[in-house]
């Protein structure tokens, strides 16, 4: 062939093909308008229904007490006193357990991470599809490495999740999230960073379990098995300090807890950013271990 000489300087980079593989996934996502619109509008629904629906701080209101139980009939002044008491109770309970006075802000931060978790499950499905429809067979004959393939899946999964999380973040501000004294424009970047790292970690888990799988059913069963417990056994909906001890132990090893904690520290909490060091160290280690795990498993199992 006359063109033989041209293609010789191939593979200067051991991760060649990573960009192509990642953009393949994202192209497929963008060009499917239904999936794209659904995944992007999902955050609005979540925040609107869940965020506004669970009005826990509203419990601490004089309205929650039956008037008639106040005997003798309350005077206007007594009523105001009780009302003031409730307001201070609310702010005391909320700040000491939830860290903020309104539950919506508390929940919005965990919904961002919950959504990240849900979005990364896609990488698991796409590995199964690639196996079923022969793409993996083709890939194994090219000079691209298995590490690159796995990293492409992980990075694209994390990027998809990140796009959704950023949209959710924007909507949370529109819906009136109460920012804390820690908040600065750059802490937004910090939140984005922890979301991405957490997304990489979760994507890796889903990629790792789907490397040998040929069934979508197995994957969706696994996803449901993992996701809901990860969210409920964390500080997502309720402060861990009020949970039984055994459950607190689980909450404390669950990386979801640390990711949510970092997002809250960056956006709605007060009292400085020092806490996020632990969060980043924990989530970062989690992501690193799961990435290494999925790469090792890919080398072992992908071509069987």
């Amino acid at each position, binding site marked *: 062939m006359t063109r033989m000489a041209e293609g010789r300087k191939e593979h200067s980079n051991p991760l060649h*093909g990573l960009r192509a593989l990642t953009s393949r996934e994202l192209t497929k996502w963008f060009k*499917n308008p239904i999936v794209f619109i659904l995944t992007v509008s999902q955050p609005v629904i979540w925040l609107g229904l869940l965020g506004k629906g669970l009005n826990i701080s509203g419990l601490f209101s004089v309205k929650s007490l039956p008037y008639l139980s106040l005997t003798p009939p309350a005077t206007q002044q007594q009523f105001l006193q009780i009302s003031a008491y409730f307001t201070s109770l609310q702010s005391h309970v909320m700040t000491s357990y939830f860290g903020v006075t309104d539950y919506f802000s508390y929940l919005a931060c965990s919904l961002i991470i919950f959504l990240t978790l849900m979005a990364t499950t896609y990488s698991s499905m796409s590995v199964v599809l690639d196996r079923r*429809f022969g793409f993996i067979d*083709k890939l194994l004959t090219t*000079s691209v490495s298995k590490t690159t393939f796995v990293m492409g899946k992980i990075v694209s999964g994390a990027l998809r999740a990140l796009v959704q999380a950023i949209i959710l973040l924007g909507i949370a501000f529109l819906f009136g999230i109460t920012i804390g004294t820690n908040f600065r424009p750059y802490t937004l970047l910090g939140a984005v960073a922890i979301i991405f790292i957490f997304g990489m970690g979760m994507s890796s888990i889903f990629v790792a379990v789907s490397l040998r799988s040929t069934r979508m059913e197995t994957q969706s069963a696994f996803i449901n098995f993992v996701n809901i417990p990860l969210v409920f056994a964390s500080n997502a909906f309720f402060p861990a300090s009020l949970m039984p001890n055994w459950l607190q132990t689980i909450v404390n090893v669950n990386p979801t807890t640390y990711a949510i904690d970092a997002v809250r520290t960056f956006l709605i909490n007060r009292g400085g950013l020092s806490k996020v060091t632990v969060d980043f160290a924990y989530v970062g280690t989690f992501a690193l271990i799961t990435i290494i795990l999925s790469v090792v498993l890919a080398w072992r199992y992908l071509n069987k």
Partner: protein
Amino acid sequence: MTEDVIVVEGLTKIFNGDLIAVDHVSFSVKNGEIFGFLGPNGAGKTTTIKMLTTVLKPAEGKASIFGKDVASQNLNVKNSIGVMQQVYTADEDLTGYQNVMLIAALYGVPKDVAKKRSLELLNLVELTAFKDKEVQTYSGGMRRRLELICSLINNPKVLFLDEPTLGLDVQTRAATWNYLRVLKKEFGMTLFLTTHYMEEADSLCDRVAIIDHGKIITIGTPNDLKKGLGGDIIMLSIQNATEDLSDLIKMVPTVKGVQRQDETYRIKAENGEETAPYIMEAVRAEGYKVGRLSLSRPTLDEVYLEFTGKSLREEEGSKISAFQQRETMRRAGGESR
């Protein structure tokens, strides 16, 4: 330039500890030749191709391509070969052009080179008009052509094709063969293909190896293999004979064997055209009347039957390969252009 491009010695693959898929296979493929592996499903063809293309590690034995060992120098090997698999591998959600560019990137071909090359290749297989259409709208033949050029994007010197025309109709199959002949003729490529279509091996291959139960049963040019069968088949029916005429027919020197079924005789003979008149004369001289006579040359079909003792044998493969084969057949039948 007739040096051996592919050299295989004692290549063996064992699955799950006891299923011997490929059993000490040895052969070599010369530069610029089209070499075919012919055998039924489950004979070990795909496993052999997977070992030669570095996807599976051999359990025993050696194979090298251009002197590079497929197990220890797999990156070198991957860069010098192209592989077109039995299954469709293209991403259906992407366009034909996007698919070719993706595979180019997986080989690390620089983008500007890849662009130029993929347009040339799309043109070669007449897909230019469809290059921006999603692959899911392609017909079976178009998909095969796309798979073919995806396997050529890295300028391979050797091309491996696993069942290149599986599920295609006769015309599309013939068109695919033409593209393969062009590759051999104009680009001097060496082609290794597997097939279970006799006529494919017959019309396309310079040499054929018949493989069954993981073992090579015979290797040769299609013509040699046919000759090895011992000649042509003459079918002769005699109208008014009650007695056996086998011995009479055997007296013609070029006749190799006779089988009788009632009035019909199946005669194996060298040079059928010249032998048939002698047989007719001999029969007539004894006062018998020839009712019908037909002459057939041996096809690779018969070679195949002779060696494997049966026609196409279906064996249970792995579940995923069965699924993929069904998928391939289903998608091959997509709307034709």
